[in-house]
């Protein structure tokens, strides 16, 4: 599993995160490690650092992890979660500037072929022109 870049999906909604992960699994298969989280610490809509950190741990690969997010707070919380990782991991985790569903599928497709983290990120980010 850890031969490929891992994918983490962070949505404000647990349902969106779960559904996105389900699409990735069905379209891309099991060759990438995949984790998802959604919802704030009280169980409402939102994101929280603790569950993002757990998702990064669960999807961790020596080749790195690409995170796909939906709205602003998901990005801010993901960046915070990255900073709280062990130093040697931090440079191998990126937040992709891409739409969450399409980005997750594209990133996972790229990752499943054994591409390095930079390629996975670039492929996802090509979805946002300019």
């Amino acid at each position, binding site marked *: 599993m850890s031969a490929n870049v891992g994918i983490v999906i962070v949505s404000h909604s647990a349902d969106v995160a779960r559904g996105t992960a389900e699409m990735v699994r069905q379209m891309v298969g099991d060759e990438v490690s995949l984790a998802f989280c959604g919802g704030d610490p009280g169980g409402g809509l939102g994101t929280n650092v603790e569950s993002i950190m757990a998702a990064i741990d669960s999807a961790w690969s020596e080749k790195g992890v690409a995170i796909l997010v939906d709205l602003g707070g998901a990005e801010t*919380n993901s*960046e915070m979660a990255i900073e709280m990782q062990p130093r040697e991991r931090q440079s191998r985790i990126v937040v992709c500037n891409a739409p969450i569903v399409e980005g997750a599928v594209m990133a996972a497709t790229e990752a499943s072929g054994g591409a390095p983290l930079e390629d996975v990120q670039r492929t996802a980010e090509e979805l946002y022109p300019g």
Partner: protein
Amino acid sequence: METGLAAMTFDENQRKSLIEGVALQVIAHADELTSLDQAIGDGDHGVNMKRGFEAVLADLDSHVAKPLPEALKALGMTLVMKVGGASGPLYGTLFMTLGKELPAEPSAEDLVRALGAAIDAVKARGKSDVGQKTMIDVLVPVLDALAAGEEPRAAADRAAEATIPMQAVRGRASFLGARSIGHMDPGARSSALIVTAAAEVLEKRA
């Protein structure tokens, strides 16, 4: 100094009044923060901040047992973990940086320097700057007031009011574009509340 912020020791009771005062102030205004956020955001700022500061109160004894810098770092970490939404990392970064920069017995100069560093860290975290209708628009005038040796509460309230005519370019409110004009920024208001509560406690100590 007139601000009552000149170098003093922070004993356990003083740390407790400071942290408790700030937490209770935020919690007491949760509904107001939520209404402000319903106008231009997703309406969760009050609930999120309340949850975060309730968690701070739950850990109050362990926070205040620590020296001021460590207490602030622990408070910041609690906010990061419990607030949810973008305000968790933003306020967490503010308090954690203050904790990193302040000595255990800060002078007024220490506070100005540490707050400057904390504001820079919040700007980096939120990729935002002055004039974008955010908490930064309160924190920077507060820093200016403190640097000038002035009492910061009036500056904080004035600055929060001044976000009303601004157009948001960061965060959820930016989706509204020009429609964000005419509403006070919820993060600016919560920052003003925190500054006011902290200044009140520090003034009583002076």
